[in-house]
């Protein structure tokens, strides 16, 4: 039997400060990139044709190069995010460029850029001649048009609203099956994953297209899945080991599910890596978003969701105990409860497994 891990005993929660610091730094990095770019007149995200519209150039060839060759020569001219689309005529191709604005000048710019790129395949047919009539012409630009965004602001806002509603659904279900704190921690972890991934897209100015949105939805799914697997184990272990502290149970549960976490995430990671490497230029945004999402989705269920849940549960427990004390001494309850909370936080920080005395909440 091949086994990746045998009887691991890692104190994950001891490193929670470092984990959260790393995550906050990553999120701040992305946020700064977006804010600074926006403030200096650049765009926070490199939005594709889907979101902001652009220019469509229709070109006709004598000898049509492959889509890949056309795309390569466009990249040489600095156009990375063009869509190259075949038509029903084998010699004609549509090239969509993400250029903002629908003015004639913008359209002309787009046309000039495409002309420069296509000159790699031969000269353009003379303006007054048709392609067939010009013996030296290799291609001609048949038409140039501006197109609006496929996904306008309305669709974008609706997408965000729907996704938030879905997250509320997740929160409520986890709250019913586990506790409110578990649900909140899982949703916070998901937010973290999406923000970090978007941060990468802003920092490196990778193109955000509709496919990236699909990838973000997918990574939300993966992240929640991962978090629930760990939480599920915590719930089970709390029933089995009522004398152990939540701190210890959480660490044990992460360790027990570690081989599953590594195998599943590793397999998905490898498959997506294959897509990043061999999937081609157009799908790169999609596969990169998935790749980053899987790494951070896995990381966040261990490093974000679990510590937040433990911290929250301990606060509640401390508050409950303080309330119980206050029942006997109903004076100056506020001060009492604060000292209790501080004490429990100290106990947790020291990494000492705290005995909760069988007061299991589940």
């Amino acid at each position, binding site marked *: *039997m091949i086994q990746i891990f045998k009887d691991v005993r890692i104190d994950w929660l001891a490193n929670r400060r470092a984990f959260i610091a790393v995550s906050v730094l990553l999120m701040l990095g992305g946020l700064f990139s977006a804010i600074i770019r926006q403030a200096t007149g650049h765009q926070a995200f490199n939005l594709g044709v889907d979101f902001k*519209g652009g220019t469509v150039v229709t070109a006709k060839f004598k000898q049509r190069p492959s*889509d*890949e060759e056309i*795309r390569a020569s466009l990249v040489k001219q600095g156009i990375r995010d063009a*869509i*190259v*689309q*075949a*038509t*029903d005529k084998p010699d004609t191709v*549509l090239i969509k460029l993400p250029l903002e604005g*629908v003015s004639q000048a913008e359209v002309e710019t787009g046309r000039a850029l495409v002309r420069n790129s296509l000159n790699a395949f031969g000269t353009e047919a003379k303006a007054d001649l048709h392609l067939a009539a010009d013996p030296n012409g290799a291609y001609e630009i048949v038409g140039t*048009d*501006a*197109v*609006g965004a*496929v996904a306008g602001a309305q*669709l974008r806002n*609706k997408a965000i609203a*729907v996704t938030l*509603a*879905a997250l509320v*659904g*997740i929160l409520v*279900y986890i709250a019913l099956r586990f506790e409110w704190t578990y649900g909140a921690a899982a949703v916070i972890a998901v937010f973290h994953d999406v923000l970090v991934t978007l941060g990468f897209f802003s920092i490196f100015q990778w193109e955000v297209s*509709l*496919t990236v*949105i*699909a990838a973000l*939805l*997918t990574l939300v*799914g*993966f992240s*929640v*899945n991962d978090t*629930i*697997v760990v939480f*599920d*184990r915590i719930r*089970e272990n709390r029933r089995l080991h009522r004398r152990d502290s939540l701190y210890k149970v959480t660490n044990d549960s992460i360790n027990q*599910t570690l*081989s*599953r976490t590594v*195998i*599943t995430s590793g*397999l*998905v990671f*490898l*498959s*997506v890596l*294959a*897509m990043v490497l*061999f*999937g*081609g230029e*157009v*799908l790169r945004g999609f*596969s990169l978003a*998935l790749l980053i999402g899987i790494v951070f989705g896995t990381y966040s269920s261990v490093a974000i969701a679990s510590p937040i849940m433990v911290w929250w549960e301990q606060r509640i427990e401390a508050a409950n105990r303080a309330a119980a004390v206050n029942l006997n001494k109903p004076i100056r309850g506020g001060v009492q409860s604060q000292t209790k909370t501080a004490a429990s936080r100290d106990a947790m920080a020291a990494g000492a497994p705290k005995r909760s005395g069988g007061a299991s909440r589940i």
Partner: protein
Amino acid sequence: MKKKNLLQRTILIAIVTLFGLYIVVGPRHRPSLKDFGWSGMKATLASNIHLGLDLKGGSHLVMRVKTEEFLKHLTEGNTVAADNAAKEAGFEVKAARAETTGGHRVIVQVVDPSKAEDIKTAIQKKVELGDTTTWSYSLSGDQLIWTMTGSAERLLADNATTQALNIIDSRINALGITEPTLQTHGSQSSHQILLQMPGVQDPERVKNLLKGESRLEMVHVVSPPSPAPAQTYATDAEAIASVSSGGTLPANRRVLKYVERMDPTSTAPEDQTREKRTKWVIVEAPAIIDGSELRNASAVPTRAGGTDDFEINFSLKKNGADKFGAWTGAHINEYMGVVLNDEVQSIAFIKSQIFDSGQIEGRFTKQSAEDLALTLRSGALPAPIEYLEERTVGPSLGQDSINSGVRASLVGLALVVLFMLIYYRGSGINAVVALVLNMILMMAGLILFGATLTLPGIAGIILTIGMAVDSNVLIFERIREELRTGKTIPSAIDQGFGRAFITIIDTHVTTIISSLFLFVFGTGPIRGFAVTLVIGLLINLFSAVYVSRTIFIWELGRKEKMESLSI
């Protein structure tokens, strides 16, 4: 007991698998031997699964909103209203006309220019000509002139385009065309709309439907009241001559074509030709109410009811119903006409007050009645639409990208299968069988739901496969754990499945719940993602848990006593 259980499970799995396979590659017509060959099955699969624009391409339609018609209509409407308002206020109007070439003007020629200011006030109180951002007023001799400003022309034309875009959007949705893209096209002043839709069955019908103006009006037909028959004229010239001697029609009258419906019982040959039955009627302008007051419209068979004899029932919104009720109450026994796109569909006299519903009769076929009801429901287009360009386009992701994407996914899938077989040995076969079954059934699900597969849909499939592999990993890791604690093989399998099942249910239900939100409230790409994910995860509960479990039971049953489990 165990044996019987296993038999039941095997039969259920076999039935589901065969059913799934039939849906995916089974021919829809009378099967021939060729359909079960490799290329035959491939062809069936290609025709069964609808691929979206990004993966397969589709038709590419560029249309233009004739905004000049919209502005013309608006100017003419205001002219009639201005004429009526001035007359109602007791002023004499010599003529009112609309100028729509080289700018848009409402011109009211009055008898007494000294009262121009009063007339202007009277008109602007009733008609929206007082809006100075849209209309600039001037007086020239005995003519009161309102000229539409250039900025208003642009703004109104842009608004008409946006409105047309929204109406086309709702018509496409009502038609059930999945995953189209709809966007503005060309420069802003060209008022063009680009629609791309993945392969549709009947493109001509779609084109006609989108183009359908569906301008519905209820009008007062100028005629002596019932029991005299409704006044009709044989030619339009005759009709015009009857109301004006000079051959120009007053602004508050329109002459419309009316094709009398065939009497189904009549066998007289002259009733059978459309030319013989074409007549002309004079109606009052403006209309009593128009299509913007519609609340609902639906196609129903007529009471006399041949199979191809349909009419359209409609109901009105509150405002329209009030207006309509007041008017019909005051005009008992007079004639009213239902006008669709400037042609009178039917004329009837008003027996009693009508409030909020009515019929459009016209011997429609079932499909034309349904199409008309659909366009009426989605609202009238603000202006007619013309098609500028129509062509078929390839996949927007590019065929080369799709090919490399497919190659990369196959590499990824091969890696997963290889790992499962090496790491979990014999039990890895369970996982692979479950995975293959999941993919077949997922395809079947997509076909049954008539879903259109796009890249976001494929993202949903990737997540499903990820979670399917995860389910097996969860189960196998759990069985290994149970074995390590010294349990017997059957009880380790039992416990492993039992424990892992709770986790699997939680992860699946959470994701299904969130996907349902995306499905119900989401649009386009988000919906595509949710559809494949929900189908895939429901199937996964069957394939990863039930099927995998069955294989284990079968393995256990094969030997009396199992010494070791290949996991």
